[in-house]
């Protein structure tokens, strides 16, 4: 063996990688080769020193140090799903149907989320939907049509706004910003009209009562929840105090507004746009908010409208359970068993005796939508949960007492 090869053996020996024969070869070479013997000695000493390197430990608990960041991340993860919800809020057809996406591992973090917020946003979306239903859907393919609501509803809205204006104090004005943003849909022209009339600093207040008035007949119970919705889009109008924020919004909006489907020519409020950026500095509550509201409302409007067409808003009216309360929400009877949704989880009972046969371990929230789809002949229940924009399908098999996710 030459020395080069032996050095390789030495190295491997330090890692206990030699078999008996190789060990022997190494030892016998070292007997006769001083250089290699010295080399091996150095290598061994080095290896020993490396082994003796202090097993350092952190001076404080790193996990404790990062716990706040981890919690923040969990909240943000849940919240960012919320933001996704806010914009196309009107896609929430069912009251209490919205929720952040719930991955199994985020299931526990639900408590970080404000369900009031979710509920309020949903209610706002519902309100839009119902309002849009009251309008002429066929004519409004684009935001243009929406922003020019039929004169009838405009007038009635305006009048109700006028009358209800005094009834509504400024209190909800500041808090209803988020809800308002999407409700501005047909309200900007209303608010535009109402604003000069009311001359108050809270033209935003007017849409609220207007919405409430017109939707009261449609199960306005949900709409009540709009009030406590906190401001989601900070650049909403709540009077001249917030000039700075709307200012920024207005400045950045014009381009955006123009890229919308709006045809400025036919749009009454659109003509305000160029004016706005100039007059905005005067800080008039009257001119700003409509521009903002119109600008900001465009996006949700467009999406809302599109989604409405897609999803068939009319279906909402037909939905049986609007109640966010606890209790049995739905039932699906099969030959032998009946499936129910009880307190946000699926429960299966014997149809005759009403005994509980199976209780799902998956507890949903009142922001999710549970739909009991069908019973198979061999007593398997298929149900779906709609969380946000995702629909998950589960199958419960009673014979094995299992519940599995089949899609996505």
């Amino acid at each position, binding site marked *: 063996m030459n020395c080069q090869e032996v050095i390789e053996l030495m190295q491997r020996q330090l890692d206990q990688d030699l078999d008996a024969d190789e060990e022997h070869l190494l030892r016998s070479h070292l007997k006769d080769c001083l250089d290699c013997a010295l080399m091996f000695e150095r*290598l061994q000493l080095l290896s020993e020193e490396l082994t003796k*390197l202090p097993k350092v430990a952190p001076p404080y608990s790193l996990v404790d140090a*990062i716990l706040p960041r981890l919690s923040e991340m969990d909240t943000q993860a849940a919240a960012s799903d919320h933001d996704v919800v806010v914009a196309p809020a009107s896609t929430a057809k069912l009251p209490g149907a919205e929720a952040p996406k719930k991955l199994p591992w985020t299931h526990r973090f639900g408590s970080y989320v404000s369900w009031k917020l979710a509920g309020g946003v949903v209610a706002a979306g519902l309100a839009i939907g119902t309002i849009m239903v009251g309008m002429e859907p066929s004519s409004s393919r684009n935001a243009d049509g929406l922003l020019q609501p039929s004169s009838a509803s405009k007038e009635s809205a305006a009048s109700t706004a006028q009358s209800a204006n005094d009834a509504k104090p400024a209190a909800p004005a500041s808090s209803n910003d988020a809800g308002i943003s999407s409700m501005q849909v047909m309200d900007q022209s209303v608010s535009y009209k109402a604003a000069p009339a009311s001359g108050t600093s809270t033209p935003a207040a007017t849409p609220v009562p207007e919405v409430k008035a017109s939707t009261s007949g449609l199960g306005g119970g949900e709409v009540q929840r709009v009030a406590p919705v906190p401001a989601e889009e900070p650049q909403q109008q709540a009077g001249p105090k917030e000039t700075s924020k709307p200012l920024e919004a207005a400045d950045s909006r014009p381009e955006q507004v123009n890229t919308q489907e709006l045809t400025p020519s036919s749009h009454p409020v659109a003509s305000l746009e160029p004016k706005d950026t100039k007059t905005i500095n005067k800080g008039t509550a009257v001119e700003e908010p409509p521009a903002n509201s119109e600008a900001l409302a465009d996006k949700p409007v467009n999406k809302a409208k599109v989604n409405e067409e897609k999803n068939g808003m009319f279906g909402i009216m037909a939905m049986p359970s609007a109640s966010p309360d606890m209790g049995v929400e739905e039932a699906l009877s099969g030959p032998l068993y009946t499936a129910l949704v009880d307190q946000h989880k699926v429960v299966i009972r014997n149809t005759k005796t009403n005994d509980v046969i199976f209780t799902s371990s998956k507890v949903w929230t009142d922001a999710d939508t549970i739909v009991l789809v069908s019973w198979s002949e061999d007593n398997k229940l298929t149900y779906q949960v709609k969380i946000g924009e995702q629909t998950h399908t589960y199958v419960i098999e009673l014979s094995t007492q299992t519940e599995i996710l089949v899609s996505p």
Partner: protein
Amino acid sequence: MVAPELVKEAQAGNRDALITLLREIETHVYRTAYYILGNEQDALDASQEALIRIYTKINSYEEKALFKTWVQRIVTNICIDKFRRAKPTVSIEEHEMVFTSQLNVEEEMLSGYLAQDIRVAIDKLPEHHRSVVVLRYLQDFSYHEIAESLNLPLNTVKSYLFRARQQLQTLLQEYQKGGVRG
């Protein structure tokens, strides 16, 4: 090492299990970071980053690899990528890593300074050689486990380790010259 059940629980969404898991590994994470980066502050930053990444990506761990190698991979990647400093790493081919030592003969002092010098020497190794040494000596990984962590072929691991030791032992030649023969 870490109980597999704990890992499974953590992956199943049990946050407490996940936090417990992190506590069990935090020292190992820090230790690797400390020796790769060479100083406490960087090591603290990097290991916290690593723990956070492990937390968020826990579900990307697949059982086909050892959990500890998966963890070390995350640490070493973070150390090598994010915290790369313009350190005067010596090209191991071109230069002999020779260190002059101003020591006297006393063995205790020798080993003390030697240890320190070895630390300095490790710091000067190119980062992949350094990582291999760290995983071998501070994590007691086998060749195979090192290969898995660093995503390197087995032979490359050996090559890096042997080269690193070869270079580091020249340090000792100086000590030997200064001590035994001087």
